[in-house]
Every structure is written in C-alpha cells, then in structure tokens.
C-alpha cells in the first residue's frame, strides 16, 4: 500500500521542459524517459513493485505454459514411449515423419477446410441473424437466448447429443428425414467418409453461431444512432442503411470474430473427438486429434509432440499474418482517431 502511495505522489509533477497542456501522449512518453533520472532507491523500489505484482502471474505462466511448451519441444527431438529414460535422440526425424504422414497432411487440410467454411458460412449467417435480432420485435430477448444457448452448452455434451441424433437408422435426424420420404446416407451422416467432415462442420456451426451473433449484436450497439437517423432522413431504406452504414461500421468486430474463429478452427479437437474420433477412414482428423492419437493411444510421444509444435507454429503464423494484414488496420485506425481527437 505504501509503495502505491509513494508512486502516485511522484506522478503529478510535470517534467521540466514540458509545458502543461501538451498532448497526454507526450507527457506519458517524457515520464517514461524521466524514469532513469530518478534516484537509485526509487528504481529498485519500482522494480520490486513490478516484481511483486507481476511475479505470481509470471511464475504461474512460466510453470504451466512456458515450461510445458519447452518440454514438448524437447520431447519432439527424441523417440520416447512415455516412460523410461529420454535418451533416444533422433534430431528432426519426428518432424520429417509427421510432415510426410498423409494422415497429418489430411488433418491439416481438414483444419483449413473448417477455417474457410467457418468464414464463408458462419459470417453471413451470423451477420444476418444479428441484423434481424437487432430490430425491435416481440420475443427479441427469447430469440437471442435461443441462438446463444448452444454456445453455453459444454462441448462434450453437445457432441454426445448430436452423435445420438445423427445415428444412422435409429437417430432423430434420419427418423425425421425418413418420415418425409428422404433416406439419409447409407452409412450415416458421421459414417460416410465423403460427408462426415461437413456434418461435423454443421454441428460446429450450430454450436458457435451463437458467439458470432452475440459479438455482432454487441458491435451493433456501437454503431451511432445519429448516422442511422441521418440516413433515414435522407430516404435510405432499411436495407440501404444496413449495407452502407451498419455493416461497414461493424468491420472491427467482424475481423476480431474471424480471428477467434480461425484460431479455434486450427485447434479444433473436442467436437471431432466426440463425434467421429477422426474417422471414418481418417475423413475428419484434425491436427489435434492426430497428435492425441499418436501420443496417448500409440505412445509415440516424440511424434505427438512434434505434431503439437507444428500445430503451435501453424497457429502462430496464422495469428501473426492476420494481425499484420487485417487487424493492423483496426489498430492503425484507432491510433489515427486518437491523434485526431487530441488535435
């Protein structure tokens, strides 16, 4: 507590050479620059404060994130069965064998298909529903809840329920289709290699559409009402207002959602594991199911950790590229806004 007070008492003095009334950013920057000129005791104190407050979180982060990741990287250079000494160093052989494995390559393709489909299908669908639900109507709250409920359900429970619904012959889906005279696929929705991935994607859409709608609805609240009113005054139709004003202003929200969706699709595991386990005939494997299968089922921990490092790298590259090419615009816009606001 005392240290907090100490720091805040030091803050108000404006630095020499900085005239009051200059932009906040300048003050902040000079304050940082001023740091080193303080007495040695003050610096130590600041360092201790930082350590005190950041330390526990940092320790947990290192223990449960950095250390396991580092160990996984280490394991990936060995052939190891999960027990016994770690002494069979194989260099990059695990990586070569993972990258040459057709099941892993297939899994990567499946991940990419899910990434692509999520954007192409869930974005327009989610946007449409959000725009509809944004209009005042009766039962609005109820409808919003209904759309959002699947997202709140535990993934495993949703998976088990859908697994049963999609059972060939005895499942509800086939039952309903049968009642109207349409036959489901011979081997079932999850048992036919050619359509299993799309069935899984359908369930994923059902599950995650709620999140997209929720985010878009939140974004819609940020669209200034005056703009909409002004447009309406100028005679714009509801449709024109959405197309020309609302959707463009929703851009940052959409881009953030797409980022979350992409990372989620790359790391996709639970739903696939419950619904198909990666089958039939490896038609729905993802990188994550591949590495779990190699690790916990076949005890090829070296291969599994190599695959997990590759998965990590893929997710990182995607995240950085997206950050650089897409999200940077939003950040740049925000910066520009801030600068404009100051002047």
């Amino acid at each position, binding site marked *: 507590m005392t240290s907090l007070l100490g720091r805040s008492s030091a803050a108000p003095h404006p630095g020499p050479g900085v005239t009051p009334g200059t932009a906040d950013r300048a003050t902040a920057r000079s304050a940082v620059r001023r740091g080193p000129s303080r007495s040695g005791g003050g610096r130590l104190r600041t360092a201790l404060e930082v350590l005190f407050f950041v330390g526990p979180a940092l320790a947990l982060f290192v223990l449960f994130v950095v250390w396991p990741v580092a160990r996984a990287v280490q394991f990936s250079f060995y052939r190891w069965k*999960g*027990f*016994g000494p*770690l002494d069979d160093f194989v260099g990059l052989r695990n990586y070569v064998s993972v990258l040459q494995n057709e099941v892993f390559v297939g899994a990567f393709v499946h991940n990419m298909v899910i990434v692509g489909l999520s954007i192409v299908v869930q974005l327009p669908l989610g946007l449409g529903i959000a725009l509809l639900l944004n209009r005042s109507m009766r039962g609005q709250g109820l409808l919003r809840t209904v759309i959002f409920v699947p997202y709140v359900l535990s993934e495993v429970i949703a998976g088990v329920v859908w697994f049963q619904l999609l059972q060939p012959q*005895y499942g509800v889906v086939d039952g309903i289709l049968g009642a109207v005279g349409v036959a489901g696929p011979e081997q079932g929705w999850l048992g036919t290699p050619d359509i299993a991935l799309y069935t899984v994607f359908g369930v994923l859409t059902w599950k995650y559409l709620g999140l997209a709608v929720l985010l878009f609805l939140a974004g819609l609240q940020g669209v200034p009402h005056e703009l909409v009113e002004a447009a309406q005054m100028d005679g714009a139709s509801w449709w024109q207002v959405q197309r020309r004003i609302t959707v463009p202003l929703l851009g940052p929200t959409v881009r953030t959602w797409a980022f979350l969706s992409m990372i989620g699709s790359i790391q996709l595991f*639970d739903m696939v594991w419950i619904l198909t386990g990666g089958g*039939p*005939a490896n038609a729905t494997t993802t990188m994550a199911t591949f590495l779990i299968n190699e690790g916990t089922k076949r*005890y090829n921990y070296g291969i599994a950790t190599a695959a*997990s490092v590759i998965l990590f790298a893929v997710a990182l590259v995607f995240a950085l590229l997206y950050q650089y090419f897409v999200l940077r615009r939003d950040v740049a816009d925000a910066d520009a806004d801030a600068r404009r606001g100051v002047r």
Partner: protein
Amino acid sequence: MRRRTVTSVALGVAAMTVLAACGTGGDDTGGSDAPASSSGAATTITWWHNSNTDPGKAYYDEVAKKFEAANPGVTVQVTAMQHEDMLTKLDAAFQSGDAPDVYMERGGGELADHVEAGLVKDLSAPAQDVVTKLGGSVAGWQVEGKTYALPFSVGVVGFWYNKALFTKAGIDKPPATVEELIATSDTLRRAGVEPISVGAGDKWPAAHYWYYLALRQCPQQVLQDAVKSLDFSDPCFVAAGTELEKIVKAKPFNKGFLSTPAQTGPTSASGLLATGKVAMEMQGHWEPGVMQGLTEDKKGLGENLGWFPFPAVSGGKGDPASALGGGDAWAVAKDAPDAAVDFVKYLLSDEVQTGFAERDMGLPTNPAASGSVKDQALAGLLKVRDQAPFVQLYFDTAFGQAVGGAMNDEIALLFAGKAGPQDIVEKTQAAADDAK
C-alpha cells in the same frame, strides 16, 4: 469380465503438453532399491485393480485382508478403479516413475516396452511354481523367456449371437466357414434382420476380424515368429486381407458401422446386439457383462444368447480350433518389496482363483478353478479356450500400440473400402520397421 476398451481419454492439447512435462524423463526407475525385506519391519504394498463394482470389489478387499492376516507386518493398500481411469493413471504413474507395487499388464509388446524401460520385476524365479502351474497361458506375458506377469484371466474372442433372431430367419445352426457366414448373413437380411454389428469406429473390433483371418490363414509358427521378428512378409498375411475384403464386400455389417463405437451406449455394436437390433457380433469374453450393462433390465440377451467360434477359412494353413484371445495379468513393479511377489502368488493360488471363478469375475487361468465358473456362457468359453491348441494374443497388444495402432488404422480403412490387403501388410511393416 474385463472390457478391452482402448483408452479414449479426451485430453486437450494443453493437457497433453502438461502431462508430457510431468514426466521425469531422465531418471531410471531401477536406480534406487526400496527396502526389499518383508521380515520384521512394516511393509506396505500398493495394489491397483479394476474390479470397481461388486462382487469383485468386496472380494478383492477380503483377499487383501486375508493376506495381511497371514503376513503380519504387511499392509496392502487397495485401490479399485474404473478400467479406463486405471489405464490413464498407470500411464502417468510410469511416466513419473511412481508405479504401484502390484498392477495389471495386458502382455505382448506393451509389457515388452515396460520391461525394456526397467519398470517390471522378473517373476520367473520367485514364482516358478505358479508359472509351471499356469502352463501355456503365461506365454503372452513372457519376454525373452522370462515371465514378467502372471495372467489371472484369459478369454477368447468369438461370435455372440441372438438365438431368437437366428430361429426367426430359419437358421438352425451357426455358420462353420466364412462362406457359410456370408450365406447366413444374406439369409438374415432377407428376413429383415441386420446380420452383424461391428464397432469399426473404435477400430479394434474391426481389426479382430483381420487378426482372426490371419490366425486361420497362417501356420502357428509364422505367427509366433512374426511377434518376435515383426516380419510380415509371409503371403498368408495378405491372404487374410483378401478374405476380409470378401466379407466386407458382402455387406453383412450394421448401417453406419464405420462410426459405430464398440460398447458405449445402446447404439454401439454391443448395444445393438443386446437390444435385438442385430443378430450377431464378434467380441471377447467380456461381452455378456457389457450387454447386461447396456440393457435396462440388466440381463442383456439372457437365454437368447449363444456363442460360436470364428468360422474356418477354406485353404487356410492355421488350425481351425486355434483362438484369438487375451487377458489380464498381475505384474510387480521393479522396485516393489518382496511381499508384493508373495501377494501376486497368493492372487493366483487355488483359493483366490476359485473365489474369482465363483463370482464370475473372468475366466480363471489356474486349472484348479476351472470347475467353479458358474455363468454358462463363461463356462462354455473356458472349455473352448482350454481345448484350443493355440491362443493368439490380440495382435495390437502383442505387437505393441505403435505397430498395432498403425495396423488397426489400416484395417479400419479396408472396412471403409479405402485400403487393400497389401496396404495393411505394408503399413504394419513400415510401423514395425520404424519401431525397431
């Protein structure tokens, strides 16, 4: 009555790396010797088993108490776990070098790996009399001539069928050859009954077909050599796949079998048989127990349940009476006290095995207990097992999961029409060469 479910633990990616990080990779468990004398000082033995429901649970507690009474100063710490839980915890225990003193081994390549890593105690000398008594059953738990675990229950795989549905379709005797099996399936289909359920979603139930066909096609010596040399160049392995392709092409399996699980829920392969939706399923000795758990009245098929051995293959070089099977054995951790070995010997004694058999907990391996099995289905299987000239351990267990898993994956692909007989042999050989 053990289920042979392959672990289906849904560990997340993060959990996996955390788990991996917990392993103490570097140190050798054989390094420090625990106090190995059971005389005088108090000794505690930890024992993990999977009989977590009665009557098995109560019986094993009683067994532990009796052993403690006969061996003053020894305490047996019993932990009863659900099967899958136990397997997961065992994996973690091996990784951290903190294995229980007495635990279950399934034999084959898995055991060989544990032996190679120095985790298991050699029981050949201290339990020599028991090894002799159990005879051929211990073969699956021997590595390079040494016995590392003592099997307490060994069962065989065969076809479980619904007698009422067979009668309904006008079938008076179970098929004895693969041709007859296909013909029987066609007859059942015509009668509006789905012939066979197979949990190909879990892969190993589908793989059992190929194992059995290899057992029918290959001479015993070829199989026994293959387990050691991991050489699958004998043409009988391709012949097994060709025969399997013939069965799959005849379409005897339940709708959606590619995604059907083995034994979870009423729409699993065992569930379909238990609820009378299909006429037969090929499964191990645990099937009646599994089916009981999947029906509301806890009876399974009851009186309607029948069993017939895997049919013969024309021109096959294997003995048609040989069987595919496997079981569970008690193993002792390398650094466990000597009392643990005494305890395992006691578990295989006439007394405990007879109690085990009386409670229908499995198919006892001690000949003295053979007559005590009450359940009719199990008693029948016991006879088949004891009359079989040769019981082949499930290939995936025998070869170890690294090779077995690759083999199972490829067999499942054949069921899906995405791989041929040659592919199975090639992929298995590739995995074996990789594991060498």
